């Protein structure tokens, strides 16, 4: 890292300060901005609508540990990943820390990868029963009551974001039911979002992750994205993901 040329370094620093400013705004000045993040929390008995599109921006350079905390927070919230009988390849994984090293430049960075909440989600298209679906507010979910465990969505997902539960479970979190033979993935903590809270991972790394409404031009996430941009993984697939990254 220290080998980057001087100008590049300077450019980079400037760039990062800009983002840091925007991200810090959420934490430093909670009063006004926080209200925007949780713009118009919906009433408990109101259905979600497409006037909102929830999204997440990850600023990789501001992650304390490249994403380990994100993974831990998710695990704790949903209770996945410690299946007793499953091999490491069979363990479920809602989010993982990926280390990327460019072959030519040897530039390396780390980022958490989870369901990218695509607008045109391949999993939704291929699912035979309609169990994979996109909620009106853009969150891609599995309706586990309909899932038959065919794993076609896992074949179709470009991000390897989905897992099949390979064994029987007990004592799941009451707000996050999970069970053998069905497919699961990051659900953007719907149970929290619906109550006006932020996803657990965002709470764990508030300086590096912004959660909010992409449809609302005044939300923090939209403003930051407008100013600094945000890349999609495999943007070439044209999936218009709800999860965006900075620094990849």
């Amino acid at each position: 890292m220290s080998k980057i040329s001087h100008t590049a370094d300077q450019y980079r620093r400037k760039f990062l300060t800009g983002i840091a400013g925007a991200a810090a705004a959420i934490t430093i000045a909670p009063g006004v901005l926080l209200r925007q993040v949780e713009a118009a929390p919906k009433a408990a008995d109101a259905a979600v609508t497409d006037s909102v599109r929830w999204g997440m921006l990850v600023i990789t350079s501001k992650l304390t540990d490249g994403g380990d905390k994100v993974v831990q927070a998710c695990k704790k919230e949903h209770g996945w990943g410690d299946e007793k009988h499953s091999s490491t390849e069979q363990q479920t994984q809602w989010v993982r820390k990926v280390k990327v090293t460019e072959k030519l430049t040897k530039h390396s960075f780390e980022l958490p990868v989870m369901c990218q909440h695509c607008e045109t989600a391949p999993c939704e298209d291929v699912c035979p029963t309609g169990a994979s679906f996109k909620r009106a507010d853009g969150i891609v979910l599995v309706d586990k009551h309909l899932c038959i465990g065919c794993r076609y969505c896992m074949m179709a997902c470009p991000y390897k974001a989905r897992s099949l539960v390979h064994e029987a479970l007990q004592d799941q979190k009451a707000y996050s039911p999970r069970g053998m033979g069905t497919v699961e993935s990051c659900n953007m903590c719907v149970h929290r979002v619906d109550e006006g809270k932020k996803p657990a991972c965002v709470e764990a790394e508030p300086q590096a992750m912004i959660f909010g409404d992409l449809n609302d031009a005044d939300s923090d996430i939209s403003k930051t994205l407008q100013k600094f941009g945000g890349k999609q993984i495999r943007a070439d697939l044209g999936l218009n993901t709800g999860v965006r990254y900075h620094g990849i």
Partner: protein
Amino acid sequence: MFGKTKFMLMLIALATMLYGCGDVAPEPDESVAKAKAEHCAISDDESEVRKNHMNYLKHKRDRTVHDGIRTKDHSFKECINCHVPKLEGENKLRHTDEKHFCSTCHTYVGVKLDCFECHTDQPEAQDAAKAEGVK
């Protein structure tokens, strides 16, 4: 012809025998819930609850998963929270146990639920629930 009559007679005999020795339907343990409320959250009418609780649940299920409606009424989580005692460790009342509120009648009528493959059969941790209430 003879075969058929005999078969019918046997069926009737079997049915009478079953009826005769049929034990009384076990009463689900309502004391846990009674300590928290007078009537079931589904309805004040007990027979309505008994007859239709699954329909309320199934309706609510789709409303929650697809529309994000998370009110407490007819919520699976809440049934368990109200109906199942909070016990620790080995004492936990499992859904495989006939004494578990949701299993008493089901074992008797021979209904097998798959809900508990995913949904926990234990009430939510009291302190966590309280903490959330405070927020």
